[in-house]
């Protein structure tokens, strides 16, 4: 799995693109990720993410909790497949991070 970190056009948010399978092999990445957050808004893009298993979900939850608690940042999720959305709904991810739907301009709008 790889990712990229960018500020928004006005430097208003941190952006992380998640790629590939999210599982036990992603532990180091998600453990280190909260320290990279600088803004009060964080966007995660799952469009290139593949399978996310239970270990991956646990890593996401820990990561999102830390971002919310230590960085006081809001988290939004974009590029979710129906499978991701189902998984996130049943495991409580959406209690920590809000999904956004792709708008006509390609930017995410809160759902």
């Amino acid at each position, binding site marked *: 799995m790889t990712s990229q970190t960018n500020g928004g056009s006005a430097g208003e948010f941190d952006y992380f693109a998640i790629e590939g399978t999210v*599982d*036990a*092999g992603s*532990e180091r990445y998600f453990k280190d990720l909260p320290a990279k957050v600088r803004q009060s808004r964080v966007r995660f893009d799952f469009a290139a993410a593949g*399978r*996310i*298993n*239970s*270990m991956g*979900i*646990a*890593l996401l*939850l*820990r990561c999102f*909790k830390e971002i919310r608690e230590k960085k006081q940042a809001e988290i939004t999720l974009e590029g979710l*497949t*129906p*499978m991701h959305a*189902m*998984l996130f*709904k*049943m*495991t*409580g*991810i959406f*209690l*920590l991070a809000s999904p956004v739907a792709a708008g006509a301009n390609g930017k995410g709008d809160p759902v």
Partner: protein
Amino acid sequence: MQQMNSIVAIFKDERDQGLWAAYLDGISALWSITAHEGLGHALERLIGRGIDPCLVILSSRLYPTEDPELVARIRGYFPEAELLLVSSSEEPSPPLLPLCADTVRHLAVNSIPGDPLGKEYFEGVLQKLVAGRPWTIGDCLGSRTGVRSIDLRSSNQKEGVVGALEAAIAGVGDEFELFRQRGALLADELMENAMYGAPRDAAGEKLFKKGEQRELLPEERLVFSFGFDGETLAMEMADNWGTLDPDLVVEYLARNQAQPGGWDDLGGRGLFLIWRFFDHFHVSVVPGKRTVVGGDLRLSRTLDPEAPRGFHITEYKKGDAA
């Protein structure tokens, strides 16, 4: 004279009984009673007739919420009977924590109206519970469907097995794509559980950590099997550790269900996902000898993350078939 292999079904009232009438129609040696006329008298009458059921079906409209002591009372009358809780798919899932405390290991949820496979499946569950036989992967597949079994030797095989399963689900379009993803996740979780959850030392501690590459131990055997008949995908993971505690399975499901978002601190997350993503979920354990975790999912059924789901967790003594 005692009537063995009979089934007693206990419902709240006639309306509740009616919901399950189609499912129970034609079941032999079935005694269906309602609680609203006095359960104690009804049970005494059955005992007076020499009825000693091997299976008691309880409605979720009675237990655990309305009558939390019901299981204890039933066990007072029929200590050897297996218990099966039945719940409507149109009602919220019953709370599972009381089932942990009462060691109720079977929950069946009725199917959508008009689904013939729902009745067929339910009858199969009853037959197996009465006969004490475990679910097998072939039970829910078409009769000519091939089942592929793969002996795992290394954790490195996981992605190859997932790929083989995905390739077996031939079809194009969003429906098939989502189905393949569900199947892939289930295969992933089943293999992860067997690779890293099953191997335990004498003190019950895990021998391997998730994420580490590992080869199987010399005496260790892990077999992943799957089949797809064009509608139903069935799969199972068998290990020869037999370390999965049946009561712990129900507890894992209950705790993960009760604490969405508390997930990172809870055990049994993989089993919880397996339960939620299968349409039917089965576990059979011969302690110290064998664990089989499996189930099936159907292409035509859309996955509702909040829909109630059943489970069947059976413990066999050493020497029994499992």
